[in-house]
């Protein structure tokens, strides 16, 4: 296929124009605005699908498109500084584009059902369009700066959508919390960009790879630490913030204040996954910076810790929120243990099944209308037995639950199992990976447990709130409620991703030899390949040599020597076996507790009361940040500084001069009054007056007196003259 700008740019521009138009017309022409948004994203999907098909036809691990243009230029004379922007599409971005546009399209459609009665129905789509275009822009970015730009724009959309019901106190707090927590990560991210820029001269991915290959990072220091480590750490902190990893995970559960479709799109499928996408793009940097072990630990801790908190949640969206954090933890663990391909695959599979889970939850919540509070019900203790009322939602949600729990043949099993297998492999190579691997397997057990707990509490058993249940309408299949769910649910089948089973021909574009297409095409960027790389300038016509790429053939050993591959395969088989056992165990325990009711959950709560409290308080992270860091640290510090500034510094050091000047004024006033005025000026007058009296007295007119004076003066003067001469 020929690539021109007109076949790529619309992917981003269509939703962006939809946003720009809708921002003005949404108030008057709500329906038209919604239509424009949906049409735009479906158009984007069309263009993305086109590109995806092209990549599948070429079917080469090295195939990519890279076009750049100048954004602005500050060069003058021999001073050079310019900032380029560009589009970079490789297999990873092609898959990502398809996923984002696909999920976003379905979520747009679902939103026309879910948000229909909302007062701000139209405005929701305005934000949705802006968000989608930012996310697609991020995927197409060829450099870290434009990633950062779109990254922050998504943060803004996330802020706006979490605070969508701004009348509610909680929504306002949650929106600030989300923006500020991710901003902590963003600030590090920006620092990472600066650090890389100082070495590479720009932040284009391929130039970073090139520099790494040429050893440009060797020996460079920043803040007394190797610069590569600083850069890798800073960039990874961006991931930690956006993908809600420990210790910046606190915002994502609160983000559930937003409408459910936005939770599905932003806080499950796309934005939070963008953090992992960034880490994958910067994977060579993470290796050079020796950060992989730390990443694996963060991922493992998050995967396990969030899963434990999910065990005790009663709000259906909260369970899903913690499961999102946990699943993102798996992806990060995958990055840490070098499981590049599987981490990305989990990103895609998770996006599909988690979007579907959220939409299903939305479908449930939307149907449960509380006639007393006039609100929707999200609490699982008031649900139960709903599978009879909403069979289609139930089917979709069940398939996705299979996927996330890791039931074999489903997508979650394929991707998560590979990550766990690689973690096991890494643990075999180095002891430091044992803990992350163990946390990963432990988390898998908990995942199976809490997901089936959620399913049992929602859909099985007897309805616990009879009145609510009776008021709930029977679900009728509708194009904008169930169809998006069922489409997503179909894509939870593992065959679409692994392709190692029969059935890959469902997707027509896949080549016949596309066994394990995902593993064949998505390979980690080897920096050596980029040594002599040149990007093409942006042009309306495509001038690339189209025969440059050879089709990548399926290599069963993935380029590994047979012996090593056998070992890898062996370890993976062990991992897969363990995963299967774990799923059975987890589902069994959930069934014992919540389906068959043989075990009493209350016993567990009482026995582990302290642990239970810790879980309910989310391990006290929120308390630590809000009550400790902000209320005891930041705000008092602000008040102190402001008080010093106005109350002490300005009042004494600046206005104090007034008193100094007044003192000087008093002294000078005294001097002026006493010395100058009284003594000098008035004194002169007085002395004249005195002289007047004296002279008047002298000029008495009496001759005898004149004689006395003359004699006195003569005597006196002769005495003086005799002394001197």
């Amino acid at each position: 296929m020929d690539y021109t700008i007109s076949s790529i740019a619309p992917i981003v521009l269509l939703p962006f124009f939809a946003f720009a138009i809708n921002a003005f017309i949404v108030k008057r022409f709500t329906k038209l605005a919604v239509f424009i948004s949906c049409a735009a994203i479906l158009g984007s999907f069309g263009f993305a699908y086109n590109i995806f098909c092209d990549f599948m036809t070429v079917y080469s691990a090295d195939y990519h498109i890279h076009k750049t243009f100048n954004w602005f230029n500050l060069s003058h004379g021999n001073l050079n500084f310019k900032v380029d922007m560009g589009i970079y599409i490789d297999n990873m971005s092609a898959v990502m584009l398809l996923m984002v546009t696909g999920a976003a399209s379905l979520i747009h459609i679902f939103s026309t059902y879910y948000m229909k009665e909302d007062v701000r129905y139209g405005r929701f789509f305005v934000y949705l369009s802006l968000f989608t275009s930012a996310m697609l822009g991020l995927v197409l970015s060829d450099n870290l700066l434009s990633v950062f730009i779109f990254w922050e724009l998504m943060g803004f959309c996330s802020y706006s959508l979490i605070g969508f019901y701004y009348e509610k106190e909680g929504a306002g707090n949650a929106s600030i919390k989300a923006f500020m927590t991710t901003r902590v990560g963003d600030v590090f991210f920006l620092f990472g960009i600066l650090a890389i820029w100082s070495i590479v001269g720009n932040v284009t991915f391929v130039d970073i790879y090139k520099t790494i290959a040429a050893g440009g990072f060797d020996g460079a220091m920043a803040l007394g630490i190797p610069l590569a480590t600083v850069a890798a750490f800073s960039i990874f902190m961006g991931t930690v913030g956006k993908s809600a990893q420990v210790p910046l995970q606190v915002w994502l559960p609160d983000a559930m204040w937003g409408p459910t479709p936005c939770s599905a799109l932003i806080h499950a499928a796309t934005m939070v996954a963008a953090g992992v996408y960034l880490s994958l793009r910067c994977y060579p940097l993470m290796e050079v910076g020796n950060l992989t072990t730390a990443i694996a630990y963060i991922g493992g801790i998050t995967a396990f810790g969030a899963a434990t908190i999910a065990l005790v949640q009663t709000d259906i969206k909260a369970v899903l929120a913690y499961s999102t954090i946990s699943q993102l933890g798996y992806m990060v663990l995958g990055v840490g243990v070098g499981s590049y391909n599987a981490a990305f695959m989990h990103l895609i599979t998770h996006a599909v099944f988690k979007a579907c889970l959220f939409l299903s939850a939305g479908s449930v919540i939307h149907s449960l209308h509380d006639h007393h509070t006039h609100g929707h019900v999200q609490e699982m203790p008031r649900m139960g037995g709903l599978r009879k009322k909403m069979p289609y939602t139930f089917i979709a949600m069940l398939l996705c639950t299979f996927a996330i729990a890791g039931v074999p043949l489903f997508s979650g099993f394929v991707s998560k199992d590979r990550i766990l297998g690689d973690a096991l492999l890494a643990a075999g190579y180095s002891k430091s990976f044992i803990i992350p691997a163990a946390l990963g397997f432990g988390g898998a057990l908990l995942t199976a447990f809490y997901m089936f707990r959620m399913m049992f509490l929602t859909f099985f058993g007897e309805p616990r709130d009879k009145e609510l249940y009776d008021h709930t309408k029977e679900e009728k299949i509708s194009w904008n409620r169930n169809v998006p769910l069922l489409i997503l649910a179909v894509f939870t089948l593992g065959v679409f991703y692994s392709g190692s089973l029969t059935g890959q021909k469902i997707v027509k574009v896949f080549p016949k030899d596309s066994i394990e297409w995902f593993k064949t095409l998505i390979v980690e960027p080897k920096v050596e390949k980029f040594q002599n790389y040149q990007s093409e300038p942006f042009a309306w016509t495509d001038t690339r040599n189209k025969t440059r790429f050879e089709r990548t053939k399926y290599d069963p050993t993935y380029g590994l020597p047979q012996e090593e591959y056998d070992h890898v395969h062996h370890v993976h088989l062990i991992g897969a076996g363990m995963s299967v056992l774990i799923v059975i165990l987890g589902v069994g325990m959930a069934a014992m507790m919540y389906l068959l009711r043989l075990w009493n959950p209350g016993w567990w709560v009482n026995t582990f009361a302290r642990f239970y409290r810790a879980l309910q308080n989310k391990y006290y992270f929120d308390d630590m940040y809000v009550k400790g860091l902000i209320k005891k640290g930041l705000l008092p510090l602000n008040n102190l500084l402001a008080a010093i500034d106005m109350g002490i510094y300005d009042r004494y050091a600046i206005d104090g001069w007034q008193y100094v000047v007044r003192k000087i004024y008093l002294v000078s006033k005294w001097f002026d009054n006493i010395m100058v005025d009284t003594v000098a000026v008035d004194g002169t007058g007085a002395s004249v007056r005195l002289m007047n009296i004296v002279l008047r007295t002298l000029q008495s007119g009496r001759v005898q007196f004149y004689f006395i004076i003359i004699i006195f003066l003569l005597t006196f003067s002769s005495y003086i003259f005799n002394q001197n001469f």
Partner: protein
Amino acid sequence: MQAHSNLLNWILWMPMIGAIVTLLIPSKMEKGIRWWSLVNTLTTFILTLVLYSKFDTTVPGMQEAFNVKIPWIAQFHINYSLGIDGISLPMILLTGLLFFLCIMSSWTITKQIKAYFSLFLFLQCSVFGVFLALDFFLFYVFWEVMLIPMFFLIGIWGGENKEYAAVKFFLYTFFGSILMLIGMVALYYASGQGADSFDILALSGGHFRNLNLELFGTNFAFNKLLFIFLFIGFAIKVPVFPFHTWLPHAHVQAPTAISVILAGVLLKMGTYGFLRIAYPIFPEASKYFSYSIAVLGIINVIYGAFCAMAQNDVKKLVAYSSVSHMGFVMLGLAAMTVQGMNGAVLQMFNHGTSTAMMFLLIGILYERSHHRWIVKPDGTKGFGGLYTQLPKFSIIFIIAMFASMGLPGLSGFISEALIFLGIYERFTSITALGLIGLLIGAAYLLWMYKRMFFGDVIDECKTYTDVNAREIAYMTPLCIAVIVFGIYPSPILNMMRASVGKLVSLLATF
């Protein structure tokens, strides 16, 4: 090249003509005064746009075609000399735009209209004078003259504590001016009292490197000492910590339009002074002190942000945010790299538009509420649920707020990013600290927004009406500027890059 020498004269004196004509209009004709001022500022703004269209972006330094040079006080070789380059042009455009918009926002002024508008136009003339003057003496005259209208505008039309604020503003700036005066006189003698002794361009280039000055029996390096004098003079205007405390008083007490001009244009005169006078004349000393400037800049950024967070008066909060954001300009100036310096000039422009939006919006709100408390002194909410009550106002406020905190896609981001790119290469640890400022900068604005706009509408706010057509009319150009230059900054960067590049090259040789 065609000469356009009268253009600068027209731009400079057009507001003065306006002020004089305003004085001639009978004070009963309030409408006439308002419309005349509007027409006058619009004409000035159009003239600045004409200047932009004739400006040659490839020429570094002063554009010969526009120069004006007439002897003024010939005995002392003082000239009436005007000129324009890529550093002053963005400031000229900003001044033209903001004064025009501020006239529209001053429509609601009812007290002594004639005096207000004539002083306001007089102020515009003096501001243009500062940005156009190429003669140090002329520069100084305009710098000082500007205080007079400012003093009365704050002192007569200000808030409850206006006299204090006006006197404080006057004395603070005056103190700095005296140091500048000393610097100017010293330069006059150091340069030999010749024909070029007050010519800023002729003084530039680092001629005073080897000069020594004996003062009280101690030997000082002439350029370092004089740089400190000029630095303090300009730093008070910026304002750089610890010379910043006039700003919260003046901004809070001044009427809306004056706050806008103060924050949008007058603060930039300080940094413009560095770029036009202190840096080119003493490049070696500037380089020598660059670390100190960076440290002061970072204190501004962080300290201003922390202080802003503690404020309960929304105007004071924005005033402190100006302290913080001007700190970024200082960081860019301290970097002395091509990115940093361009970023600093761009930040001067961008801060001008975004902070003007903030102050205008607060003014709009004040006209409805007659108070500015986020939390009143008695602990109750000052505002609440404004988003529900004033939807259009809230959307404009969001744009202003996010532009001010540097959200990518809006103008503040590019300048801040350029400044950070510039400063990183020289002072890495200061860059790391500066990022804290970005974090706190987002925090106080979002927190303010949440407290004022989210939640239920409180009873007091239920009577407020949304922005009217006039208010939308003067907010729209700024909204457009903030968005367009956020996506496509090249128009402004192209204007300045040659001139800034010339200055950077000069600094690089020392």
